[in-house]
């Protein structure tokens, strides 16, 4: 009884390829050293696929070079016959065979059934519903950021201007430095400057928390896909939206992220548009001004600013795309969407904390240094009035320098040296705009004298009780986003001294149109040149020429936009 051995499996690669394989096998019989080491058919196929390791091995063997020459000719004939690379054709045959085998042998009862992820994606990545859903979620994020964080913002402000300032003054008095320029440095420079930005930690925390929730759930990838689709439909490169989305966090990594774009012109164009995506550092400015001039509509105003930035980027992109230099077609691409998952508390906390920590670290570097530098210039008398660290702010060297460019902002409604000084310092880092305002408006002196002295225990008690009150108000404010009032604190509380001072100043410089001037200021901050680190990134990634194009262009555009807002608004209001 015979027991035939099943013939070895041999995939048919089609007539053309099989002909070349057989030809190569016949040629190999002239080189016994080679056929003794490698199976002929296997070797022929791998050589047609240009296996580099095999090529190197053959070069060392007798007859190897000659064989490789024959393979080269075979590949040339195949290219002419099938119009394709042999490696592609061979791989294609394999995949085809595997696919047919799987189709015949594997039963998939659930093939074609959509998973829950797929069903959700059908909605959130829908060509019509995708963008409105994205916009709605972003609106909730900004409402959460602007409205819900407000109680904690007030809490930190109260702690800094109260207990922290009290303890600092007390300690300095103990060591004999009370009432000296050292006290001024700490109170008017460091606490006012750094503290002016630290109050916005809750704002950023809520923003990062909301974004972390969207990220960890897997939605952000869908948002990127939806916006990429939208971008490609209006002629902009679809891949551009990923760097642009990064720009909502910070312009610097966003500009570096343009490296993912292979085409140089797409890269430059995207890099030019990134600064219009309002970065997180600008948020404290928006929150402050929205609270001052639009207390009941803060979230909406801030959302509107972000929207304006996006629209500006789209319009600028479309205009530049029409120019001969940037004209081109968008490339297709494939995107892998991660599965949806439920965010974990630990994951949300870690994501949020990492970003907040980085912000706090920056408070001890750039913001601290800039606060000290601003305090120094603000302590130097510009004329004969006062002495070092004992000069009215408006008579200081800082005010004099800032006052030189203030007239340029008069048509925009904020032609004061205070506003222009804040914008100048914003070139260092956008967070410094608020800390500079906290310093230049110099509102603490009279208020400190009016408050009764408190003990250390009373201060500690104030910290904890006010924290509890802020937490309760925050919890009540969450459902208020959706119109459910649980007795949350009046969203229009009494303004702080800084807010009052800014309000008064803008009212004066705008001829009574303070809110318009405040809105124009926010628009200016949105559009004007990003921070110096972002400019350095532009120089590195886009080149010096495009860096200057961006810097000057954004300054001019910001002035123009703010002018339209202020002057146009005045015409409308009458």
């Amino acid at each position, binding site marked *: 009884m015979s027991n035939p051995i099943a013939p070895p499996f041999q995939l048919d690669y089609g007539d053309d390829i099989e002909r070349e394989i057989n030809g190569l096998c016949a040629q190999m019989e002239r080189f016994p050293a080679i056929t003794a080491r490698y199976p002929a058919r296997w070797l022929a196929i791998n050589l047609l696929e240009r296996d580099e390791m095999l090529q190197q091995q053959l070069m060392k063997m007798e007859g190897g070079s000659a064989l490789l020459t024959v393979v080269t000719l075979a590949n040339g004939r195949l290219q002419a016959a099938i119009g394709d690379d042999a490696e592609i054709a061979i791989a294609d045959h394999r995949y085809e065979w595997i696919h047919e085998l799987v189709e015949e042998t594997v039963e998939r009862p659930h093939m074609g059934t959509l998973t829950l992820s797929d069903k959700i994606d059908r909605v959130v990545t829908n060509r019509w519903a995708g963008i409105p859903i994205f916009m709605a979620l972003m609106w909730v994020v900004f409402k959460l950021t602007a409205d819900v964080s407000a109680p904690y913002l007030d809490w930190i402000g109260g702690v800094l201007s109260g207990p922290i300032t009290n303890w600092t003054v007390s300690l300095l008095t103990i060591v004999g430095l009370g009432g000296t320029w050292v006290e001024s440095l700490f109170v008017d420079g460091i606490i006012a400057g750094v503290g002016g930005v630290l109050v916005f930690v809750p704002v950023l925390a809520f923003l990062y928390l909301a974004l972390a929730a969207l990220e960890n759930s897997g939605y952000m990838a869908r948002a990127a896909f939806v916006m990429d689709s939208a971008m490609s439909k209006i002629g902009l490169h679809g891949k551009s939206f990923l760097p642009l989305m990064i720009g909502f966090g*910070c312009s610097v990594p966003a500009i570096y992220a343009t490296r993912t774009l292979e085409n140089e012109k797409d890269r430059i164009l995207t890099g030019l548009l990134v600064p219009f995506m309002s970065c997180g550092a600008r948020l404290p400015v928006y929150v402050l001004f929205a609270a001052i001039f639009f207390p009941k509509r803060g979230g909406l105003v801030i959302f509107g600013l972000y929207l304006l930035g996006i629209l500006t980027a789209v319009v600028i992109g479309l205009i530049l795309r029409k120019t001969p230099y940037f004209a081109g077609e968008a490339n297709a691409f494939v995107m892998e969407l*991660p599965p949806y998952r439920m965010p974990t508390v630990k994951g949300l906390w870690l994501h949020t904390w*990492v970003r907040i920590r980085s912000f706090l670290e920056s408070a001890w570097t750039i913001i601290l240094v800039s606060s000290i530098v601003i305090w120094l210039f603000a302590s130097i008398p510009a004329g004969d009035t006062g002495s070092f660290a004992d000069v009215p702010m408006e008579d200081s060297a800082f005010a004099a320098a800032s006052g030189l460019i203030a007239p340029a902002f008069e048509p925009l409604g904020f032609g004061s040296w205070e506003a222009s000084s804040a914008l100048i310092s914003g070139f260092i880092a956008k967070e410094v705009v608020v800390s500079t305002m906290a310093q230049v408006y110099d509102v603490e002196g009279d208020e400190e004298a009016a408050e009764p002295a408190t003990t250390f225990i009373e201060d500690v008690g104030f910290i904890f009780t006010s924290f509890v009150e802020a937490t309760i108000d925050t919890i009540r404010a969450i459902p208020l986003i959706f119109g459910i009032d649980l007795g949350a604190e009046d969203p229009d509380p009494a303004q702080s001294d800084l807010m009052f001072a800014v309000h008064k100043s803008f009212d004066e410089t705008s001829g009574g149109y303070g809110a318009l001037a405040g809105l124009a200021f926010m628009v200016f901050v949105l559009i004007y040149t990003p921070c110096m680190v972002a400019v350095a990134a532009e120089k590195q990634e886009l080149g010096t020429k495009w860096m200057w194009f961006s810097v000057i262009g954004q300054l001019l555009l910001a002035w123009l936009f703010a002018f339209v807002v202020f002057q146009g608004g005045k015409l409308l209001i009458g």
Partner: protein
Amino acid sequence: MLRQVLHEIESANAPITLQTLGRRLAIEPSALQGMIDFWVRKGRLRDDDAVDNCATSGGCGTSCGGATGCAFVVETPRSYSLRPLKKVQLLPNKA
């Protein structure tokens, strides 16, 4: 099969997800990934390797959370871009 994958991407004229591509071609995601990787090796697709490292290496001193903290960098999805057709490379001439 391989050619079909490339053809679907080329003819999409817009971003397409791997999931959609797999459904259209009735291909398992794992098999599709292999084909995508093949085209990346052949140079017809480019693995964008979405930025997962902030070039500033840990923050630029502003609100940026750096490489591990940037709001949008960390979870950017993996994507592959179509590249223009290149001439087929034949075996190099024997030295």
